[in-house]
């Protein structure tokens, strides 16, 4: 009896074999090396670690392989992570992608509650959550409309997703559905998102419905609403510094389904226990801001905040970036949790009060 994993492996090899001729014709090879310092500050202690990473990417027209090796001197460990290993084919207009691949359904928000994998992306950062072993079928209906279907191969759960995307009066509109069935719980999420412009401001919003079912225990629905806007300006005439601002408001019903959406905060670098948010008001309402100020063509400072409007606790995440040369970049990121231990975004209960990351990277 073939397992799903062995089936995907055989199919991958078969497709690789059939595409060898095409693969040999054109490819791009590149990567990135980086070194950095991570410091995490708790009340009682600080943890510091120095790390080095190397990322290698081999991109063919119809296949992509990407691998990351990381060495953490603090933990004395070396890890290798296969980020991408997929082949892609077109069959009668349908694009089929098979293997380890990123599945990301972003539409420009800071936190995306209707993404395929929650916690996969925020602030253009990426985590390993979005790279999944899956097969994706993608069918374009016209230049601006498409539908895609994803089914994932995972031993812990069965998961599939569907996305339909189109443009209505210059608004990017999508309908997303994700079903994840596991032994301990079944989660079904569906939602709508839209993004467009009102005069000079970018505007967007989403509605999410989560059904969280634990056999013999609970069957609850959670609703989540989000609206956001972004704008950019030239400031300080004579220097022309650019200022980009984004603000986003989330209103989430407080019950077990909240746990699913709290996961999406992980993409912003904040891991939280959802039970901390239960009690108090019927809805969790949070406000996020992202401000980025370009000092010149090479360097910028940014400020990301995440605030609970219920108790005022705030996560502050400033960052500084400087492109030292065409291929070398310095990034400094800080995160600081303000608020009491019992507040929504306060430090304590295992959460550090601050963290610092300094990283120097070189691309080739």
């Amino acid at each position: 009896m073939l397992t799903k994993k062995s089936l995907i492996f055989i199919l991958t090899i078969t497709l690789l074999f059939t595409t060898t001729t095409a693969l040999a014709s054109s490819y791009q090879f590149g990567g990135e090396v980086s070194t950095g310092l991570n410091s995490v500050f708790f009340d009682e202690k600080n943890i510091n670690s120095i790390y080095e990473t190397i990322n290698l990417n081999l991109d063919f027209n119809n296949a992509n392989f990407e691998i990351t090796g990381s060495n953490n001197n603090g933990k004395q460990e070396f890890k290798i992570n296969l980020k991408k290993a997929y082949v892609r084919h077109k069959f009668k207009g349908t694009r089929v992608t098979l293997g380890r691949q990123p599945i990301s359904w972003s539409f420009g928000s800071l936190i995306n509650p209707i993404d395929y994998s929650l916690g996969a992306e925020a602030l253009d950062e990426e985590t390993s959550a979005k790279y999944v072993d899956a097969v994706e079928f993608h069918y374009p209906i016209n230049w601006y409309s498409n539908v895609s279907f994803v089914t994932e191969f995972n031993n812990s759960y069965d998961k599939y997703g569907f996305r339909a995307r189109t443009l209505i009066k210059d608004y990017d509109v999508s309908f997303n559905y994700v079903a994840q069935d596991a032994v301990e719980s079944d989660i079904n999420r569906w939602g709508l998102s839209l993004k467009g412009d009102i005069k000079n401001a970018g505007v967007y919003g989403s509605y999410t419905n989560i059904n969280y079912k634990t056999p013999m225990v609970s069957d609850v629905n959670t609703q989540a609403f989000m609206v956001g806007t972004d704008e950019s300006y030239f400031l300080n005439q004579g220097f022309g510094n650019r200022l980009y601002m984004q603000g986003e408001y989330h209103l989430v019903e407080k019950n077990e389904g909240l746990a699913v959406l709290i996961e999406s905060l992980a993409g912003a670098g904040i891991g939280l226990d959802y039970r901390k948010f239960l009690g108090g008001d019927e809805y969790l309402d949070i406000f996020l801001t992202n401000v980025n100020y370009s000092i010149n063509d090479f360097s910028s400072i940014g400020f990301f905040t995440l605030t609970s409007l219920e108790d005022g606790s705030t996560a502050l995440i400033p960052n500084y970036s400087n492109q030292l040369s065409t291929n070398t970049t310095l990034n400094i990121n800080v995160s600081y949790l303000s608020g009491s231990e019992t507040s929504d975004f306060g430090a304590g209960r295992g959460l550090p009060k601050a963290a610092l990351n300094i990283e120097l990277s070189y691309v080739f």
Partner: protein
Amino acid sequence: MKFKKVTALIILSLFIFSSSALAITAEEIINKRDDNEYLKQARVESTMIINNAGRELEKKMVSLIEGDKALVRFTNPMDRGTKFLKREDNLWMFFPDAEDVVKLSGHMLERGMMGSDFSYKDMMESEKLTELYNFELVGEVEYNGRPCYKIEAIKEEGAEVSYYKRIGWIDKERFIGLREELYAESGKLLKVAEVTEVEEIEGRWYPIRTIMENKLRENTSTTFIIDSIEFNPEIPEGTFSLESLQ
């Protein structure tokens, strides 16, 4: 005596006729420039060098252009795989790590593309200027040793353009813009584009090295170099689509 009068009249008539026939209007100059510079369809490989107070960044890209539609793919290591699709006033971006397509807000069209002094509109739009501006020939001058027509353009009422007024220096012989000043409605000078190298390609003159200075910023400029250009290539149907971004 009568014969002399008739001869003088004929000569005068011929002079007036030939003068009016030779006089070129601003619209004709711009049309001739558009014949050279307007890209109905093109495939362009180019380099952008961003200079700020002595520091330089280099970006390389491949662009497919068809009127107000464009598909741009960056090829330099820092931005490798990043793509932009522009159709009318909609701008889409492909993030290569996440392999994700996101629609950018409209205000980004006016911002510098990837940190340069060229806006996304400057880089991704080939406009037939006669459809957007009213032109006036304000003089004939010499610029960098070349005889030029100096043309002033004010935007047509209702036209959606990035710059209210443009003043252009157009080479009298080659009908190519050698310098252009771009102004806001307030009269403030926003940008100056200076063409430092032109080349005759496929029978038409085209600027292959342009330096853009954003006058709202100090000590910065962006040099745009055409590494290769193919006019009117065959662009497959469906190229300017979200599908092509991925």
